């Protein structure tokens, strides 16, 4: 199976033959829905207590891409979010900073000015969230965000092209956006809630990895369902297999719908038991979230103080 999946050298040609891509992607092993969901459910029964919970909560905080992606976002909102990102718990200097602040492209400059180089600045680009714009617009969107100081770009794939079987179009877009990113890291959003089947998720993961993604990301957060345990498990299996075959480690970002510490810990357990320690750090695994952070902080305070202090003891942003 592995040999059939091996892709041709991605560097060799930017224009790829759609039929070659199709036969490669359709040659990937299938996914049994019942089995995948069963495995995710079993892993979710792991019971993480005491020291392992303390470690997991701090690790989860350090993996958060603290996100605001609203039409009503302003400089003021973004500044507040940046302050929170740098000092999630102002009462406790041992609390780690989050991994990144994630905003729309026009707010990148404000964000960078606030956080300096202390956390990453991620910009959603390529006509997020629908991806329905011309290639020129998508590339401009990306270049502008990088010029303004983004060092991570979260792009969306063209789901329409993917579902129509036009894999070459999706591939070429990713290659082009990657080039436009320069040194910035590229996260490729698959929007699994619109791909619908697990077979599609595996194919889209391989397509994105092969086209040069540094991270593959579940969702925009604008489509339901966003990240789920089974979808993320499947993407972790894809990066594991890709690393086996190519030696290249790709990161995974679960975004949207992860609201509680319990959920976050379940994701970490899944990372731990699927791809292992190498992925248990902010360079290789991220949470795209906003409300999750405060729940992590409340749990962190509870573990530290032995009791809940409640929502008035964490800051709103």
């Amino acid at each position, binding site marked *: 199976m592995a040999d059939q999946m091996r892709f041709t050298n991605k560097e060799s040609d930017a224009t790829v033959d759609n039929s070659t891509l199709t036969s490669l992607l359709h040659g990937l*092993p299938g996914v049994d829905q*019942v*089995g995948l969901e069963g495995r995710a459910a079993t892993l979710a029964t792991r019971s993480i*207590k005491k020291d392992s919970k303390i470690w997991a909560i701090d690790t989860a905080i350090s993996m958060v891409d603290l996100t605001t992606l609203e039409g009503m976002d302003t400089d003021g909102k973004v500044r507040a979010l940046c302050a929170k990102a740098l000092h999630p718990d102002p009462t406790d200097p041992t609390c780690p900073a989050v991994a990144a602040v994630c905003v729309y492209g026009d707010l990148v400059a404000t964000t960078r000015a606030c956080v300096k180089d202390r956390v990453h600045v991620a910009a959603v680009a390529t006509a997020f969230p629908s991806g329905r714009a011309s290639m020129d617009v998508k590339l401009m969107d990306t270049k502008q965000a990088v010029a303004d100081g983004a060092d991570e770009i979260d792009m969306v794939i063209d789901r329409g092209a993917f579902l129509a079987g036009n894999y070459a179009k999706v591939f070429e877009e990713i290659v082009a956006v990657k080039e436009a990113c320069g040194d910035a890291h590229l996260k490729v959003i698959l929007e699994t809630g619109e791909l619908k089947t697990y077979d599609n998720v595996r194919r889209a993961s391989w397509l994105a990895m092969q086209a040069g993604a540094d991270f593959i990301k579940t969702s925009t957060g604008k489509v339901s369902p966003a990240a789920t345990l089974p979808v993320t498990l499947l993407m972790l299996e894809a990066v594991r297999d890709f690393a086996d075959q190519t030696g290249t480690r790709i990161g995974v970002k679960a975004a949207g719908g992860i609201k509680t510490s319990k959920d976050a810990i379940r994701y970490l357990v899944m990372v731990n038991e699927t791809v292992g320690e190498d992925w248990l750090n902010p360079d290789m695994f991220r949470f795209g979230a906003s409300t999750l952070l405060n729940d992590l902080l409340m749990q962190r305070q509870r573990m530290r103080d032995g009791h809940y202090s409640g929502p008035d003891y964490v800051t709103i942003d």
Partner: protein
Amino acid sequence: MPFDYAPAPESRSIVDIESNYGLFIGGSFSEPTSGEFFKTINPATEEVLSEVAEAGQADVDAAVAAARRAYDKTWSKMSGKDRAKYIFRIARLIQERSRELAVLETLDNGKPIRESRDVDLPLVAAHFFYHAGWADKLEFAGYGPDPKSLGVAAQVIPWNFPLLMLAWKVAPALACGNTVVLKPAETTPLTALAFADICQQAGLPPGVVNIITGAGETGRMLVEHPDVDKVAFTGSTEVGKAIQRAVAGTKKKLTLELGGKAANIVFDDAPIDQAIEGIVNGIYFNQGHVCCAGSRLLLQESVADEALASLKRRLTTLRLGDPLDKNTDIGAINSSMQLSKIEELTASGEAEGAERWSPTCPIPDKGFWFPPTVFTNVTQAHRIAREEIFGPVLSVLTFRTPEEAVAKANNTPFGLSAGIWTEKGSRILWMANQMRAGIVWANTFNRFDPTSPFGGFKESGFGREGGVQGLGAYLNVEDPS
């Protein structure tokens, strides 16, 4: 820093184990006439949990007599609707007390709490609920307009799923209007005795369910008792044959659910990640103490190396240890006797030239343990490919064509279960028709449901448990009068 899971033990304070237990005969506990008791231990620590009565001939006679009285006077005369009330009540009590029963099962058996909590107990309750539903609908089960019960059922069950095997036996027997004398395995009597308490709590008429403890000799006396109408046994093929000889020429109706050596067949187009999970679940679930375990892995040769590498990687994440820890995947082997048997057979595997592999995993100092083990380069001629090991030991063989897979899968005296892994629906149907096995799973393994009949071909036994077919084992279907 690696992600080490801190110990997360389930509290055992929820169970209250008595220092000794008598025999449950005629609705109450009584001392054995011999006055003899034997110890039951926690196989994970070798700690003595309790002492239970050793039933002798007089006790067996008393239990069968109590069951006969209850059958003649009460249970056979009661309407199906009223029987259902009792069985539903038992089902609800099992659900209410499921945490306690799960902890007790894990203590006495050694299986991980994750399995007793998430698999055994939900299935136990489901079996009682399902059969309670049948009690007043037997006329629609396809066994004639007014199917009759058999009488007194003698039931002997194994130690691998103590309470679940009790449920598989007791629930259909009661639903069909029979009364029961049940003997649990000598190493795992405690949940059956807790079930006796549930029968009292449910107000079940005295004598409808009798539970007698003891070893093989007690079981022999029970199945040979002349006033028994039905014998149901789950256990080894060797004992099953002895029972069949013993009941030959009597009026007793017999069902046997015996050993297995199931083939789990993985084709090159299988959903590979889920197939790996299915292999793991097939043979390492319940430490491989499963009669339908997928103990022979048949891999299509074109994907064998890759699948084995994935399997080994997955096995390194299995967590062996304290069965009460909620994160334990592999618990203790049930007894030192079973451990010796596994050790003897695995030694023969090595001696016969198969290649042995286990992940590195620390083994606790006390108790009975065996690491998850894989044998490669196994051929059909090896003992580990033919004999039931009943432990966490997988024998891996390869095949080239579907026909070869069928031939190898069926080339065994057993015929309990089989697994088929392929994305091709037509191949699943074709393979399922070729398998000489009572249960065929497609793209899954070790899935159980009370609506689905379970039972074997060939030396794996006969008769079915569960589903509408299972009711036939407790109804007089041959001689309606």
